[in-house]
């Protein structure tokens, strides 16, 4: 490990410990590290946006290639900044309207197809008890129906209807349980990576 690496990784180690210190109680070291993360992320994003969007999508087409129609979306983008003025903030509604219109036009048909129709079709599969695949399809369809019944509030959840709703709750609970287990795994993964980083640093620099 070179001197530069020792210094930068040492700083990273210090910042990691600053972030961990919130687990004990709120303190100025945590605050410094937190603000630094936000600041660095925002600054990094601004620079990335300038070089990956402004230069190739505005500067090069307009200045070098003389494609002046690129100025129309650029102008709409500039109008977004009018929000910072009380007097001219209404102007920003034009680019927002254009952005929302385009976004909705693009998204609605695709969303209907991919988030509603295709998954609905996937629930309507051949079902039965003769193979695991058929039984699995039965479980999925049954689980979906029971979960939907749970969210049907126009009829009191009593008797057979209440029983079906209860199966719906259990189906949802299984889903939440899987989600919780995977969330624990995700968070622990982050902790493992930081602890491994600390261990490697200490081993490499201090020979521990």
């Amino acid at each position, binding site marked *: 490990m070179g001197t530069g690496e020792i210094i930068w990784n040492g700083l990273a180690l210090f910042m990691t410990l600053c972030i961990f210190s919130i687990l004990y109680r709120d303190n100025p070291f945590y605050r410094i590290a937190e603000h630094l993360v936000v600041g660095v992320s925002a600054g990094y994003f601004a620079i990335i946006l300038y070089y990956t969007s402004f230069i190739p999508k505005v500067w090069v087409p307009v200045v070098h290639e003389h494609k002046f129609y690129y100025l129309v979306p650029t102008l709409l983008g500039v109008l977004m900044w009018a929000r910072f003025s009380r007097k001219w903030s209404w102007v920003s509604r034009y680019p927002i309207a254009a952005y929302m219109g385009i976004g909705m036009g693009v998204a609605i048909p695709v969303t209907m197809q991919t988030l509603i129709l295709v998954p609905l079709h996937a629930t309507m599969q051949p079902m039965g008890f003769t193979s695991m695949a058929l039984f699995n399809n039965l479980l999925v369809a049954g689980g979906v129906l029971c979960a939907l019944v749970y969210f049907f509030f126009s009829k009191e959840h009593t008797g057979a209807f209440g029983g079906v709703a209860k199966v719906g709750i259990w189906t949802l609970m299984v889903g939440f349980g899987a989600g919780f287990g995977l969330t624990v795994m995700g968070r622990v993964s982050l902790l*493992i990576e930081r602890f491994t980083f600390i261990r490697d640093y200490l081993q490499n620099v201090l020979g521990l």
Partner: protein
Amino acid sequence: MGFYEKLMTMDRRVVYLAMALAVAVPLFIPFQVPIHTTPEVKSVYNFIENLKEGDRLLIAIDYDPNAMAELHPMALTICRQCFAKGIKLFFVTLSQNAPGMAEQLVSRLSKEFNKKNGVDYVYLGYKPYPGLVILSMGQNFRISFPMDYYGTPVDSMPIMQGIRNYDDMKAVIAFEAGWVADAWIQDANGRYKLPVALGLTGVMTADYYPYIQSKQIFGLMGGLKGAAEYETLAKAKDRIASRGMKVQTITHIVVILFIIVGNIGFFMSKRKQP
């Protein structure tokens, strides 16, 4: 306050300390846990194994450094498998804090396998508004990426000759830490029928299993476990995720113990109430 009430109101710092020990101690103890592979991870591995030399694959590195721990190991293993097979890789990133990190990954692997930018792979870089970028790539990669990450016009690169849109790609393997995963499913698969496989953070994984049932994605690797499974299948040398799984096992046992203790406290203190 009785014993069971104390269990209910345990100082959260005790839990943090227990978790810290559960992570730190196994890191210094050499042992392994068995890793069983699942069909959703195997299908990604088999898909890549069945590709031929010169086939093209789109790789989306859509995660920030905060998801690196989970997604970097699987991205490394898959890209190594692809480069070893001579598959041509097209890297993009649609997450704003990812470009530098993705560049690090790409340059590390290219050195490792002696691959040339513009010939064996291309790193197209970052563009904002993922949904629109994914849709535009379905028409022509050049709409969003006239130049690569390093500022080289893509038309001057041998790898981009004859490449227009998703029709020229076998699939996209997208490593995701946020909603961009939905955009790949909706726009790349839904609109352009590009086969999609996802590498996801653990938090997201459960939400995306239904897409396997509906065949909108052909494979899914969830969190560190997904990465460890892939390492096992690919017989990876650098088994970062697999080493992490032993720690996962211990920490999960600790979490389960705390849940049991909390529930004992809850039910026993309830029973004591008149």
